[in-house]
């Protein structure tokens, strides 16, 4: 009775909450396609996902360089998506391992940036959930 319940430190809770909301939730459409489609995930969906994921991550970043990178990656995958829809086989150069690496690098870069903001700088993720 009365024992203190230990939980994750507040800054780590903010960090994991951010990772869940910004990095994992946007992957749901791909997961759903992988679950329900007999042919697995279509490359067009992957390209569309990368372009939207990239710009989504870039917009929430505080760093101009990361924002610029995200816009360029978004444009690259928009072009690849357009080419794939137009049935150009050359666009497959951006698929497969390249697409996986790009997604992996984006997740890693954003995790590091969020670690810096929420764990090191102690910035809250949900500003409205805490009082000043």
């Amino acid at each position, binding site marked *: 009775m009365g024992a203190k319940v230990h939980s994750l430190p*507040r*800054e780590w809770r903010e960090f994991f909450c951010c990772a869940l909301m910004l990095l994992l939730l946007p992957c749901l459409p791909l997961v759903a396609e992988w679950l329900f489609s007999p042919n697995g995930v279509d490359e067009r969906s992957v390209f569309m996902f990368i372009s939207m994921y990239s710009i989504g991550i870039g917009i929430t970043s505080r760093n101009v*360089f*990361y924002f610029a*990178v995200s816009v*360029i*990656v978004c444009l*690259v*995958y928009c*072009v*690849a998506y357009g*080419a794939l829809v137009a049935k*150009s086989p*050359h*666009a497959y*150069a*951006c698929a497969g391992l*390249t697409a996986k*690496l*790009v997604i992996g*690098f*984006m997740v*890693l*870069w954003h995790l*590091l*940036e969020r*670690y*810096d903001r929420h764990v*090191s*700088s*102690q*910035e*809250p993720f949900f*500003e409205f959930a*805490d*009082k*000043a």
Partner: protein
Amino acid sequence: MTIFFDVLRWVALALTFSAVASSALQVFRRHRAEQQMRQLFLSNAELSAELRAIRVKVEQARASEEIDAEFYALADAKLQMLAEQLTGQYRKLVLLSLRQPSVVGRRNYIGKLLQAA
């Protein structure tokens, strides 16, 4: 056409990889900056004692928002003064956190630095 998509592929890979490297460097630099800040606490016994006294008062006054805010403001001023003594990138990183737009974040960061005092 294949060359065009090959170039796009390498551009995307190079840019995302450089973003990873840059953010890892940022995390490393902040870690070093905070280590330098702790060294300053150790080398400045008088200021360190003042910050410790502020920390004790902040902890005692948690229930009273007004007093809490007053001591946080005092700690903020002293920590900013201390951070000015850091060099280059390190100063920038600590000052950025001390002057971040989020009031809650600023207070949390001051609390974290006070813990190190």
